[in-house]
Structures are given as structure tokens and as C-alpha cells.
């Protein structure tokens, strides 16, 4: 390299001033174009982002214990492909943690499922308040692979772990007055921040007729995919009634009461014309705002599949409703 200053370029190579200024304008306009385009795209992205948030970051695995399973396959299990663990744990309706499908996966870490006590009372001969681990130890855990049909017309196939609710009811001995079972979710806005908003009347309550509760398909689930129930799926214990819409499956249960009268249920209170007490899956009875004739299987085919009466469990449960008008008792 030489120390001499660089030679001036010949005048023929000097950009004419007018062109130089236009170049500057061109650069300025290019910059403004790029900036504005990015701002518009970014603004729209921010408005719509909650639909497309990456999910894999929220899949729970640490700290969830594998549970002992007494029996690998039962007579009620479906052979359909299971919905992935990732989808089952990141696509949830659990308004206690927010309204978007991935809110429960993002926010349910504030729930403390241990220690946890469950109150069993009402029309029973042996009312009790019992620790969740003690309660679970009373029964051998079974895996049950059930279809789950949401009232929003999507469905999953989930390998639950749990015990039949009927076994628990036997143990507490319902009185002859008991006609219904009422369930209550935890109410604690510190653990369930969604309860700070008046979206629904908290706590969430659900109910079943006693014969529905005693049906062998009706499960108290404490796990899925061989592991403890993740918080967003209703830890430590939830109800699973596979022939009913998913909202009947009340989560994070703190109280089970046997009653004489039909208990109030949360979605029925919120919109009585849209959600009934029975909420049996029924392709013939549309939701007032959308059809229930078909459903989308999460993680399955793009094409909708026909919805089956009682979610495909008609053979097991249709007799419970003999003589009832299921259009009126929806």
C-alpha cells in the first residue's frame, strides 16, 4: 500500500448533481417504502399473533410423574390414533387461565395441585375431606382412551388415567335421597388469574344425574399419557364424560356433593339457550350458532368428520335417556 493520497477521479466519472439528488430521493423513498411496509406487516402481525403463537415452548414435561397403570387396555378404548401429547396439552379451554386456546398452557403454572384436598358431602352416608393422593390411592388407575368432543366442533383422542367415578361414589355411600352429583372447581384468583375477570360466574360448577355419574364410562382422571395430569388439563383431578361435550368435564375439582335437585352448571347459567344441563354430543341438535353435525379432529385430517350420536358411545349410554326428548333436554 502506498502512503500517497488517492488520486481524484476524472471529472467524467463525477455524478451530475441533479442525478445525485435524485439518487438521494430514491434512497429515501426506498427506505420509507421498506419502513412503512414493515410497520404495516408488523402491526397486523401483532394484532393477529395470538392465533399463531408457537406452542412447543409450553409443552409440559418436567416434574410430571409417571403413574402406575393397573390395566393396559379396557373394553371402552378406541383404536383411533391418539392426539399428540403436545396438542392435548397446548390446545385447551380452561377460562380460569385465559380465553385463548394456548393461554392455559402459558399461564397454568400458577396453579398448585399439591397439597390439595377434596370435599365429598351432601347426600352421602360417609362425607369426608380427603387429600388428593390418599383419594387416588384408594383405586387402581386405569388407562382409558376416549374420544373428546368439544362443543366448539373439534375433537381429540386422549389416553386418560383415572378411576371410575362410580367406585368413588360407592365408597361414600349415597343416601336414597341422592339424585344428582354436583362438582366445583377451585376458586382462587391468585392461582387462577382468569377468575379476576367476570367472564363466567366463578367458581366453575358442573353436574351429572346420579346414574350418569355411576356409569362405568364416567372417569375421574388424574393423568394422561401415563403421566400426572398437567395443570392446564385440570390438575390434580378432573371429570371425563366421553359422551358429553367437553365443557361437562370440570377441571381441578375441590368438591363433590350429592344432591336431591339438579345442580346449576356454569355454561348453562351463562347461556341457557346454547348449553343445556345434559350436553350429550348430538349431531342432530345444532348449537344455535353453528352446526354440530361434523367436527375437526385436532392433528388429524383437514377434512371434517361426521359427529356420532353420544360421541360414538350410544351403545353404552343411550338407554340412560330412553323416553327423553333430547332436543328439549339438550
Amino acid at each position, binding site marked *: 500500500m502506498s502512503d500517497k493520497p488517492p488520486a481524484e477521479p476524472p471529472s467524467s466519472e463525477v455524478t451530475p448533481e441533479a442525478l445525485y439528488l435524485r439518487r438521494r430521493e430514491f434512497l429515501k*423513498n*426506498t427506505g*420509507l*417504502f*421498506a*419502513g*412503512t*411496509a*414493515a*410497520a*404495516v*406487516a*408488523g402491526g*397486523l*402481525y401483532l*394484532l*393477529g399473533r395470538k*392465533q*399463531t*403463537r*408457537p*406452542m412447543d415452548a409450553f409443552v409440559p414435561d418436567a416434574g410430571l410423574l409417571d403413574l402406575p397403570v393397573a390395566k393396559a387396555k379396557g373394553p371402552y378404548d378406541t383404536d383411533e390414533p391418539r392426539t399428540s401429547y*403436545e*396438542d392435548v396439552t*397446548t*390446545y385447551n379451554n380452561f*377460562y380460569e387461565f385465559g*380465553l385463548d*386456546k*394456548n393461554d392455559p398452557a402459558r399461564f397454568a403454572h400458577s396453579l398448585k395441585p399439591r397439597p390439595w384436598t377434596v370435599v365429598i358431602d351432601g347426600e352421602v352416608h360417609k362425607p369426608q375431606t380427603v387429600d388428593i393422593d390418599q383419594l387416588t390411592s384408594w383405586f387402581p388407575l386405569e388407562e382409558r382412551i376416549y374420544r373428546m368432543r368439544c362443543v*366448539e366442533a*373439534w375433537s381429540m383422542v386422549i389416553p386418560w388415567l383415572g378411576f371410575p367415578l362410580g367406585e368413588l361414589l360407592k365408597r361414600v355411600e349415597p343416601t336414597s335421597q341422592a339424585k344428582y352429583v354436583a362438582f366445583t372447581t377451585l376458586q382462587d384468583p391468585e392461582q387462577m388469574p382468569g377468575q379476576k*375477570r367476570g*367472564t*363466567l360466574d366463578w367458581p366453575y360448577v358442573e353436574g351429572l344425574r346420579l346414574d350418569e355419574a355411576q356409569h362405568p364410562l364416567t372417569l375421574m382422571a388424574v393423568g394422561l399419557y401415563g403421566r400426572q395430569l398437567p395443570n392446564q388439563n385440570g390438575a390434580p383431578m378432573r371429570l371425563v364424560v366421553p359422551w358429553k361435550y367437553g365443557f361437562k368435564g370440570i377441571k381441578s375439582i375441590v368438591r363433590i356433593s350429592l344432591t336431591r335437585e339438579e345442580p346449576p352448571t356454569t355454561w348453562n347459567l*351463562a*347461556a341457557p339457550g346454547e348449553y343445556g344441563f345434559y350436553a350429550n354430543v348430538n349431531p342432530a341438535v*345444532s348449537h344455535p*350458532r*353453528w*352446526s354440530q*353435525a*361434523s367436527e*375437526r379432529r*385436532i*392433528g388429524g385430517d*383437514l*377434512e*371434517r368428520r361426521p359427529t356420532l350420536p353420544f360421541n360414538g358411545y350410544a351403545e353404552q349410554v343411550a338407554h340412560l335417556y330412553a323416553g327423553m326428548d333430547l332436543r328439549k333436554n339438550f
Partner: protein
Amino acid sequence: MASPPHPWLNPALTVGGLAPLMMLAVQGPRGDLGPNAVEAALNQTGLFALVLLTASLACTPLRLVFKWTWPARIRRTLGLLAFTYAASHFLVYAVLDQGLKLGAILEDIGKRPFITVGFTALMLLVPLAVTSTNAWVRRLGFPRWQRLHRLAYVAAVLGVVHFVWRVKKDLTEPLLYAAVLALLFAVRGAEAMRKRRARAAVAARSAAS
């Protein structure tokens, strides 16, 4: 040659406005839209249609209130983008969600009010998109063209109703758009009233003289 002011504005809006649609087209088939990709695509296209339509309706009120003139220059682009998203929204519903089963689609449009109003809003936007060119403004004459394009307000209101009826419980977001629309209506209403008073005053003065 004098170029129009802000020559970058409309191209930038077009590119930026279409970018999310391109993203959806890439993300959807790759499985990047979450467990329920069809629902995600429906929600996003529907939301963007309403946002862009509302933005196009904000152009005139912005001029009236802040004396800004540049929004008027992007109104057509905003409207066409809104139509693009509304049409995509319907196509995702008809093709991906319903698998082009005509019977089910017609039943939805006929029997479910929330789909009826959404479909009506889209149908109202079709003539507006078709007549969005300068040639059509000339052909119709500006006053008639202007009257026709007031349908955009009707479409936006129907869009909000569609949104409200779709939501299961929490109305915060649809009501936000309802509030913005109400504000835009208020500005237009106040302006119409001011003009009428001004005309009345002029008429009164000319009658007195």
C-alpha cells in the same frame, strides 16, 4: 417530472398488507399454525378484513379532524386489502373448513345468523371492489359512486356483528371494533350536521339580502 407526494406509500401498504396472507399460505401447510390451523387461518383473515376495512373508513374522519390528506390516498388500497382478506376468509371457510360441501355451506349461510351476516358483508364488498378503479368513478359519476361506497360502512357494521356472534363469551375484542366504528360514525355525523347548518346559514343570508 413531478412525482406524486409519498410515491412509496401505496406500494408499501400493499406489500406490508399482503405479507401476513403470504405468511399464512407458507405456515399453514408447514404445520406452523398450531393444533387447529384452519381455525387460526379463519380467525386471522377475518380479523384483518375487519381491521383494514375499519382503517379505510377512518381516512375521511382523519382528514376532517386532523386535516391530514395522506390517508385519502391510501383509502382504495386499504379497501382492496380488506376485500382480499374477506374473500380469503370465505375461501378458507368454504374450501378448508367445509371441504366445498355446497349443502353444508348453503345451510350455514341460510340458517346461522352469524354466517348470514358475514356472508352478506362479503357480498356488499364485491361491487365496491369492482368499482374501485378511476374508470368506474368516471362511469358512475362521483356522487353516485360515493353513495354506492357508503356500503362499506354497512359491511363494517355487519363484520362487527359477525364477530360478536362468533365469540363464545368474552366480547371485549369485537366491542373494541364496535367502539371505533361508532367514533368514526360520530365524526361523519358531526361533519354532516356542520355542513347542513352552513348551508342553512348561507340560504338564510341570501334570502335576507
